[in-house]
């Protein structure tokens, strides 16, 4: 078992450092429904460097969630090709290189916090990568120490999302995909989780793709923001966010931050 895990590890390491975490070339996604064919994404070219934090921002229906699901092997591309760390998404997925945090925490209600976080180790071969950590350490990292035995219905919405984040990190994924994870939370909780997410990102050195419809969240979190336009979903612009690291919540009151947010808003109005 251990020997097998080591084997896998050695196999996975030779990926050259220059290989982007995500590489989409000329990807389009179309869905056929009873009302006709919908083009969710059209001509997407996207490279995300390893260790980066990219926010995906756009109006509803712009395909930002579809783009995330495409990378996670939850939606197949109709045209073009997608690579995650130089492999097909399905391969990266089965190697446990992709973590996903859903909009609704998607916890299993019959499992305690600890057992929810451990779920990935019980299914799909339970393989964990070199970046894996103990469930206890991750629960502490997301600020839920002392809640290990609690059940999801005993937790608030923000706490459930923290559990979902810990669960996604348990096998040490190199790529973390987050689909509006804080969209349903109140602003105070959301602010706190935003700040904590940046710390987690720095600590774990994972690449993060973060879908949001909040301009402030996108600008505060991302090193870059990818703005998408709707019908058909396509890339409008990719904006680098020039803000000093480490970012704290007070940063959002500085003129630089306000300027960056205003710039994003102006672009968004053309989407």
């Amino acid at each position, binding site marked *: 078992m251990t020997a097998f895990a080591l084997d896998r590890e050695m196999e996975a390491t030779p990926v050259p450092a220059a290989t982007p975490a995500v590489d989409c070339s000329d990807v389009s996604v179309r869905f056929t429904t009873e009302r006709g064919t919908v083009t969710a994404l059209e001509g997407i070219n996207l490279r995300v460097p390893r260790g980066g934090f990219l926010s995906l921002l756009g109006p509803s229906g712009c395909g930002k969630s579809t783009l995330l*699901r495409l990378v*996670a*092997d*939850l939606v197949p591309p109709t045209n073009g090709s997608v690579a995650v760390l130089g492999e097909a998404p399905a391969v990266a*997925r*089965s190697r*446990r290189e*992709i*973590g*996903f945090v*859903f*909009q*609704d*925490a*998607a*916890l*299993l*209600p*019959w499992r305690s916090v600890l057992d929810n976080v451990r*779920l*990935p180790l*019980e*299914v*799909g*071969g339970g393989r964990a990568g070199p970046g894996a950590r103990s469930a206890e350490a991750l629960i502490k990292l997301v600020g839920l*120490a*002392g*809640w290990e035995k609690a*059940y*999801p*219905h005993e937790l608030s919405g923000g706490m*459930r999302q923290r559990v979902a984040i810990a669960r996604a990190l348990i096998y040490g994924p190199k790529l973390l995909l987050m689909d509006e994870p804080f969209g349903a939370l109140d602003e105070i909780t959301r602010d706190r989780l935003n700040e904590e997410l940046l710390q987690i990102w720095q600590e774990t050195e994972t690449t993060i793709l973060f879908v949001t419809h909040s301009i402030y969240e996108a600008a505060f979190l991302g090193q870059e923001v990818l703005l998408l336009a709707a019908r058909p979903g396509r890339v409008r612009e990719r904006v680098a966010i020039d803000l000093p690291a480490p970012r704290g919540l007070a940063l959002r009151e500085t003129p630089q931050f306000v300027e960056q947010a205003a710039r994003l808003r102006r672009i968004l109005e053309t989407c």
Partner: protein
Amino acid sequence: MADSVVTAPLGGAFAQDKEAQARFDARQRRLLWRKRLLPIVALVGVLLAWWLAVVFFDIQPFIAPSPVAVAATLKAKFPMLMTNLAPTAIEAVLGFLLGNIAATLVATSFVLRRTMEEAFFPIAVMINTIPVVAKAPILVLLLGNGMEPKIAIAALICFFPTLVNMTRGLRNVSQEQLDLMHVLSARSREVFFKLRVQNSLPYLFSALKIAASTAVIGAIVGEWIGSNIGIGALIIQATYNFDSALLYATIVVGSTFSALFFALISLIERRVITWNAGRAA
């Protein structure tokens, strides 16, 4: 202080006020006792009204007995009543097991292969529309005069509610949970046991609680046709002999068994389902 934070993480949100706490606890206790005592008071009231009605209107014993007569019969004929309860209980419990196991297996096949559901669900609905009193003679003809047709009737009566509930419970998992399992590269066996089966347990127990009482009804109805032992047979005999006290006593025995069976299933449910399925995400 640090320890109490770990055990009760919301400890900081609660102030200590002994007097208010004592008043709150006393009120909770009062409410609990009220909940326990009211049904007993109501039952005693109904029995009293019944007894008074029999005495006041001078109702003949072959029409309706007084509760005192029923109690006397229960006491005098207790061994005979138990001898008759035994076969009914065995039939009901075996039918319950058989019907629910079959329903669970069929529900599993429905969920794994939709073709199975499309082909066989209409047949299940049709069988379910046949009244129990019509199913009973058919099964007696098929299976003879022993315990088998009674077990079959009890099983059939349990089958449908469990089939419908289990199919729903196994199928109603959220798309996000399925997506999660896909991202985790879970095998279909793992999705079934770690997601679908767990998800179906609250549904299963609602069905089992219905089945606990209907299985007993099934066994009793089965005994109405071609049987000389069992609660059902005793009901028929007592009716033909105008022995209303024995009839009522028999019904009390059957219902008590039914209620105990139901209570047992509820107890198991409470031990198995430790999470709050209604509110969980």
